[in-house]
C-alpha cells in the first residue's frame, strides 16, 4: 500500500481524500474513477498508479495539461508528499498517510506465554471491512462511474428513481407538489393513473424536508408505510407515489452515495446524467445506409463536434438521437434514456435547434417563447421571467415584438437557440447552428454555447461542416463520412495524429518550379499546392521553416512567397477519407439526408 494519499483541496469534491490502491483514471468521462466534470478537463485526463509505497501520475495527453507544483507534467512522474496536482480548476494535494488514530498499546508486561506461530496459514485471508467508507468503496469498485457523484445543491433534493420521470432530480427549495394534473402540480406524473391530480407535497423544513399526502386516492408511502400526516424525511428515505419511487437526498451528498434504488432501472443505472451513448447506430433508407453502425460517447459537460460534409449522415444521426427518426439498428441513450423506448423522457431532457431555424414567420419572439413554454409544460408563473431572461440572453429584447418574418438569419438562429432552452435541457443538440451566418453572428453563437457548457454544465452535440467551428468550439470531434465515423478525438489529437506541417513555396520565376521541388523534396513528401507553388509535407523532426529557406537560398532560388501551414482538420479529413472536406458534400447520396 502506498504511504501517501491524494486529498482534493479545491474543486467540486473538495474535502475528499483518496487512497490509491490501484490504478485510478482521472478525467471528465464517466469511465473515470475520479470524475472532474469541468470543461478544461479531458475525458481521460491523467492516471494515478500505486508504485511501491509511492504514487506515480501520468498525463494522458490531456488538452489543457496536468500540472505538478505549477509545472506542466509530461509523461509520468513519481509523487511525493506535499506535491500539488492541478487538473482543471481542481487541486489535489499529496499527503503522507496518517498514522492510525489509536495505535495498539504495547502490553504492560510480556505475556506469560508468547504466542505460537500458527501451524498453518489461516484458512481464510482477512476479510475487508463489511462497510468501507463510501468514497473508498466507490473507488475500489471496478467500473463504477462516479459521474453521478457530482455534488448536488445544498437544497434537499428528490431523486426520482422509477416511474415516468426516472433519473430526474428535483431540488426542494420551496413547496413542490407532485400530481397528475399539469395545472396543479410541479412534478407531473400524468402517465400514472394511480397518482391523484394533487397527490402529495414536499416542503423544505430546516435543513431537511417534509412530505404530506394531499388526500390522494391511492396514498403516499414513506419507506413502505402509508402516511396520514406530514412526515419529516431523512436522507435515504424512500417515498412511493403510484409507480414512482422517490429517494430523499438531504445536504450535499453525492448522488452516487445514495442508497441503491429499491427497484433498479436498467435503463438509467450507471449512466451519466448528461451523457450521450451510441452503439452501432444504423439508419437505413431502402438500400442506402445513411448512418452505418456508428459508436460514440459524449461525456457530461462536453461539446462534441460532429463534422462532415453534406449527406455524410450528421443530421440523420441528430434526428435519431432526438427521437424524430426511428433507429434502424443499434442503441442510443441520452442521459441514460433509450431513444427508442423512452422517447418522452428523452425529449424532456434535450433541447434541439435543427438545421433550419424552425420558426413561424407570423409570430414574434414573445409568442414563440410562450408557445414553446406552454407545450413544454413550463408553469405559467415562471414563463414571463424565463422568456425575458432567454430573450435578453440571446440579444433579441429590442426586436422581440416584431414578427420573425422580418428577422435576419442570425436573429432567427438566436431565437431558435432560446426556444431550445426554455425547459432547461441537460443535453443540447445543435444541427449546423451557424450555417449561413455572418462571422459576427457566428462568434456570438459560439460564445453562448460555450457559456451554456461552462455555467450550466450542459452537454452539447454540435454538427457542423465548418472546420473552424469544430476547432474552436468542440472539446472532441467525430468526423463522419458516408455514414461512418472515420476519426475521433480532440482537434489537437486529430491534427497531431496526421499532423505534420506543410511548407508551400512560390518561386518568382515559374521556370524554377522544378528546382524548388528538388529542394523541397529533401524535407518530406511533395503534395499538391496552389498555382505556381510547390508544397511539401515536412518529415517528422523537421519543424523549422528556416531550414527550408536556407536550403532554397543555398541554391540561389528566388521565392515570391513561403508559407508554413499547420495541419488542419481538413488535412485530417483528407488523410482519413482521401478527399478534402471542402466541397466533399457534392455527391449523389447527399439526397438521403433529411432536411
Amino acid at each position, binding site marked *: 500500500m502506498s504511504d501517501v494519499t491524494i486529498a482534493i483541496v479545491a474543486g467540486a469534491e473538495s474535502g475528499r481524500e483518496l487512497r490509491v490502491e490501484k490504478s485510478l483514471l482521472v478525467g471528465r468521462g464517466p469511465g473515470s474513477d475520479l470524475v472532474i466534470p469541468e470543461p478544461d478537463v479531458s475525458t481521460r485526463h491523467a492516471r494515478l498508479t500505486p508504485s511501491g509505497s509511492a504514487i506515480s501520475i501520468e498525463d494522458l495527453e490531456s488538452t489543457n495539461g496536468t500540472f505538478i507544483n505549477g509545472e506542466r507534467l509530461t509523461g509520468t512522474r513519481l509523487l511525493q508528499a506535499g506535491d500539488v496536482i492541478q487538473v482543471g480548476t481542481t487541486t489535489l494535494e499529496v499527503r503522507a498517510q496518517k498514522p492510525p488514530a489509536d495505535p495498539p498499546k504495547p502490553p504492560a508486561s510480556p505475556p506469560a506465554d508468547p504466542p505460537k506461530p500458527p501451524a498453518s496459514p489461516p484458512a481464510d485471508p482477512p476479510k475487508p471491512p463489511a462497510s468501507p467508507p463510501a468514497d473508498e468503496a466507490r473507488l475500489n469498485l471496478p467500473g463504477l462511474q462516479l459521474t453521478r457523484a457530482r455534488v448536488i*445543491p445544498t437544497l434537499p433534493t428528490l431523486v426520482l428513481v422509477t416511474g415516468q420521470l426516472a433519473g430526474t432530480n428535483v431540488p426542494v427549495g420551496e413547496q413542490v407538489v407532485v400530481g397528475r394534473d399539469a395545472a396543479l402540480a410541479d412534478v407531473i406524473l400524468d402517465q400514472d393513473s394511480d397518482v391523484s391530480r394533487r397527490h402529495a407535497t414536499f416542503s423544505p423544513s430546516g435543513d431537511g424536508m417534509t412530505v404530506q399526502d394531499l388526500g390522494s386516492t391511492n396514498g403516499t408511502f414513506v419507506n413502505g408505510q402509508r402516511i396520514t400526516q406530514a412526515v419529516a424525511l431523512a436522507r435515504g428515505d424512500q417515498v412511493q407515489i403510484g409507480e414512482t419511487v422517490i429517494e430523499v437526498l438531504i445536504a450535499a451528498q453525492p448522488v452516487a452515495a445514495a442508497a441503491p434504488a429499491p427497484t433498479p432501472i436498467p435503463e438509467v443505472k450507471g449512466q451519466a*446524467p448528461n451523457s450521450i451513448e451510441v452503439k452501432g447506430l444504423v439508419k437505413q433508407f431502402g438500400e442506402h445506409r445513411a448512418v452505418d453502425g456508428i459508436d460514440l460517447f459524449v461525456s457530461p459537460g462536453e461539446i462534441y463536434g460532429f463534422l462532415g460534409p453534406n449527406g455524410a449522415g450528421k443530421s440523420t444521426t441528430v434526428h435519431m438521437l432526438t427521437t424524430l427518426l426511428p433507429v434502424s439498428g443499434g442503441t442510443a441513450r441520452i442521459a441514460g434514456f433509450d431513444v427508442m423506448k423512452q422517447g418522452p*423522457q428523452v*425529449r424532456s431532457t434535450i433541447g434541439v435547434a*435543427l438545421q433550419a431555424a424552425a420558426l413561424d414567420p*407570423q*409570430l414574434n419572439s414573445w409568442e414563440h417563447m410562450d408557445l*414553446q413554454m406552454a407545450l413544454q409544460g413550463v408553469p405559467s408563473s415562471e414563463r414571463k421571467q424565463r422568456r425575458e431572461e432567454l430573450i435578453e440572453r440571446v440579444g433579441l429584447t429590442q426586436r422581440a415584438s416584431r414578427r420573425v418574418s422580418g428577422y435576419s438569419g442570425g436573429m432567427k438562429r438566436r431565437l431558435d437557440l432560446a426556444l431550445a432552452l426554455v425547459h432547461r435541457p441537460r443535453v443540447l443538440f445543435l444541427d449546423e447552428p451557424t450555417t449561413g451566418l455572418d462571422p459576427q453572428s457566428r462568434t456570438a453563437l459560439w460564445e453562448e454555447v460555450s457559456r451554456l457548457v461552462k*455555467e*450550466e454544465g450542459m452537454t452539447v452535440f454540435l454538427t457542423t461542416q465548418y472546420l473552424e467551428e469544430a476547432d474552436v468550439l468542440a472539446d472532441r470531434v467525430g468526423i463522419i463520412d458516408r455514414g461512418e465515423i472515420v476519426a475521433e478525438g480532440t482537434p489537437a489529437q486529430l491534427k497531431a495524429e496526421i499532423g505534420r506541417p506543410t511548407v508551400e513555396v512560390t518561386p518568382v520565376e515559374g521556370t524554377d518550379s522544378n528546382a524548388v521541388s528538388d529542394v523541397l523534396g529533401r524535407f518530406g513528401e511533395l503534395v499538391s499546392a496552389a498555382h505556381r507553388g510547390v508544397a511539401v509535407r515536412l518529415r517528422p523532426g523537421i519543424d523549422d521553416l528556416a531550414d527550408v529557406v536556407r536550403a532554397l537560398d543555398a541554391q540561389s532560388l528566388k521565392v515570391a512567397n513561403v508559407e508554413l501551414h499547420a495541419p488542419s482538420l481538413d488535412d485530417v479529413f483528407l488523410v482519413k477519407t482521401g478527399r478534402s472536406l471542402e466541397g466533399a458534400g457534392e455527391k449523389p447520396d447527399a439526397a438521403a439526408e433529411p432536411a
Partner: protein
Amino acid sequence: MSTSVAVPRVSSSVAGQVRTIARRSIARTLRQPAVIIPNMLFPLFMLAVLSKAGNQATKIPGFPTKSYITFVLGATLVQGATSAATLAGGLLAEDIEGGFMNRMLLTPASKSVLIIAQLAGVLIVGFLQSIIFLLVGLAFGVTVKAGVGGALVLLAIALLLVLLFGSIGLFTAAAAGSLAQVQALTGLFIALMFLSSMLMPRNLIKHEWFKTIATYNPFSYLVEATRSLLVTGWDGQALALGIGIATGGVILALFGAVIVLQRTLERT
C-alpha cells in the same frame, strides 16, 4: 456547475396543449389577410355573377324559388368553406416543410392535438366568412325559409363544412407534406362544385350523364342541405344527408390525417 437543478415538467395538460396550438393557429391565420381576403371575395364574386346570370333559370317550371340568389347562396356557403382546405392544409404543410412541426414534435404535445388544434384558426375565419356571406345575401334580398332558427342551423352547417374541408386539407398536407399539393385541391373542389346540383336542382338537370354525376357527387348533398334551409324550409332528408356526409367526411379526414401524420412524422 449545475447539472439537474430544474423542476422537470415533462407534460402539459391536453386542454392546455389544445389552447396553445389553437391560439397560434388563430393568430397566424388572421395575420395572413392576403390569403383570407381572396378566399372570401371569390365566392362573393361568384354569387354576384351567378345570381345575375341564373335569373332565367327561375322561370323553369318546377324551379323551387323565384330568387336565384337565394337558390345559389347555399352553394356560396359551401364554396367559401372549401377554402378552409387550402388554408388549414397550407399552414400544416408549411409547418412540415419549414420544420416547425419537428419543433412541436419535440415537446410532450400529442400528435393528435398538434393536428386537430390547427383547425382553430380556419374555424374562426370560416365562421366569420359564413356570417358575412349570409348578411350579404340578406342585403340583396335573400330570405331564409326556415326562419331565424334555420339561419342559425345554416351557420352551424357552414361551420361543419369548414371543419370538413379543413380536415381534408390537413389530410392532404399530412399525406403529401407539400404546399403545392394542398393548393391543387382548389381546382378539384371547383370542378366538383360545378359537377354538382349547385346551379340547378337535380330533378331539373336535363342531361342524364350530368344528373348521374351530380347524384354521386357528395357536393350536391352539401349544397342541398344548406339550400334547403334557404329555399324549402325544414327538409329533414336534405339536412340528414348533408350533415351525415359532412360528419362522416370530418371523421374520415381527421382520422386519416392523424394516421398519415403518425407515419409521416415518425417519432419514437
